[in-house]
């Protein structure tokens, strides 16, 4: 408050007050005192008026800011939809990869089994443990094996290509997430402004924001999550063995 108490007028009023009191003028003293009080009240009202106007202007300018209305009505629902799309894309990519892997594994197993089997017979032939009739049989199977392997290798290549192509989600989802991070920054800026305008103290009370220790919070994000964490399977094993596991 920039009210100055010591002014010529007020000094004169105090002199009057003293004079009336010394004269025993009860009514006169009361009048001067009332006047002094009025001066003070007027100053107070002026200050309150100023504050009210400032707050009013601030709220008005904040409310009329198109950007904020746009954020609330368009950008945030838009971000939500985009993030949902990220979940869909990563889910699809993971399933496409898993599908290709699940198709490939039996092909590999088949190739492995057939190779093993033929290898053993081939060894019998090298060690001259095979008669001509058996060898003719082996030749036929070898031919069949090579045909089958060529086909399976071709299929395998296709599945591997599929796994390769399924990774395109990373580029696309990164772009979407970057856009949402930009939006979060905007919202943050506006929230900080709002808090400043409302004059609320921004001091964070650590006791109140800490999460319950036992509550599930999902994957630990390096540099973001703090607390009493283990850093990998080895530490989990150490902890469990210290508990008698």
């Amino acid at each position: 408050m920039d009210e100055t108490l010591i002014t010529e007028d007020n000094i004169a009023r105090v002199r009057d007050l003293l004079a009336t009191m010394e004269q025993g003028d009860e009514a006169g003293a009361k009048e001067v005192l009332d006047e002094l009080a009025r001066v003070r009240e007027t100053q107070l009202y002026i200050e309150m008026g100023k504050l009210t106007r400032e707050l009013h202007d601030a709220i008005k300018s904040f409310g009329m800011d198109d950007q904020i209305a746009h954020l609330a009505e368009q950008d945030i629902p838009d971000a939500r939809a985009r993030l949902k799309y990220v979940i869909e894309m990563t889910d699809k990519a993971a399933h496409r990869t898993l599908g290709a892997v699940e198709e490939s594994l039996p092909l590999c197993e088949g190739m492995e089994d057939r190779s093993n089997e033929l290898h053993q017979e081939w060894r019998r032939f090298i060690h001259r443990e095979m008669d001509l009739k058996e060898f003719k049989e082996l030749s036929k199977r070898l031919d069949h094996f090579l045909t089958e392997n060529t086909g399976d290798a071709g299929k395998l290549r296709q599945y591997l290509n599929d796994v390769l192509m399924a990774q395109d989600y990373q580029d696309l989802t990164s772009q979407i997430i970057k856009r949402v991070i930009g939006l979060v920054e905007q919202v943050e800026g506006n929230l900080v402004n709002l808090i400043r305008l409302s004059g609320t103290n921004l001091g964070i009370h650590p006791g109140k924001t800490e999460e319950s220790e036992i509550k599930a919070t999902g994957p630990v994000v390096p540099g973001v999550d703090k607390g009493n964490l283990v850093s990998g399977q080895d530490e989990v094993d150490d902890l469990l063995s210290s508990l008698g596991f």
Partner: protein
Amino acid sequence: MNKEMKILVVDDFSTMRRIIKNLLRDLGFNNTTEADDGLTALPMLQKGDFDFLITDWNMPGMQGIDLLKAVRADEKLATLPVMMVTAEQKREQIVEAAQAGVNGYIVKPFTAQTLKEKIEKIFERVDG
């Protein structure tokens, strides 16, 4: 260790269930069934004759830790071997799971080798 044993895999993400099922198949376990959270898993466990439970922690509906507690509280299921495969890695959580009677605890991301070792360790104790 019986490779024919019946295993229930509980995780809310179907991709993680598929990964675990594939790893189990590679280890020779083909008798696997899936559930997407504790609420669907518990009646399956009570009805079916499962030999092993692998569960995530953070799931909607019933969380893995509550499923573990429900299993331990159920007379018929109390001794069922339970392994948690989860991204939760606060020390307090691991202690909580241990106190609730978990048999193994694997943190994501994990390797096929870790899964193999932990399953072997659990059944060494159970069979031994």
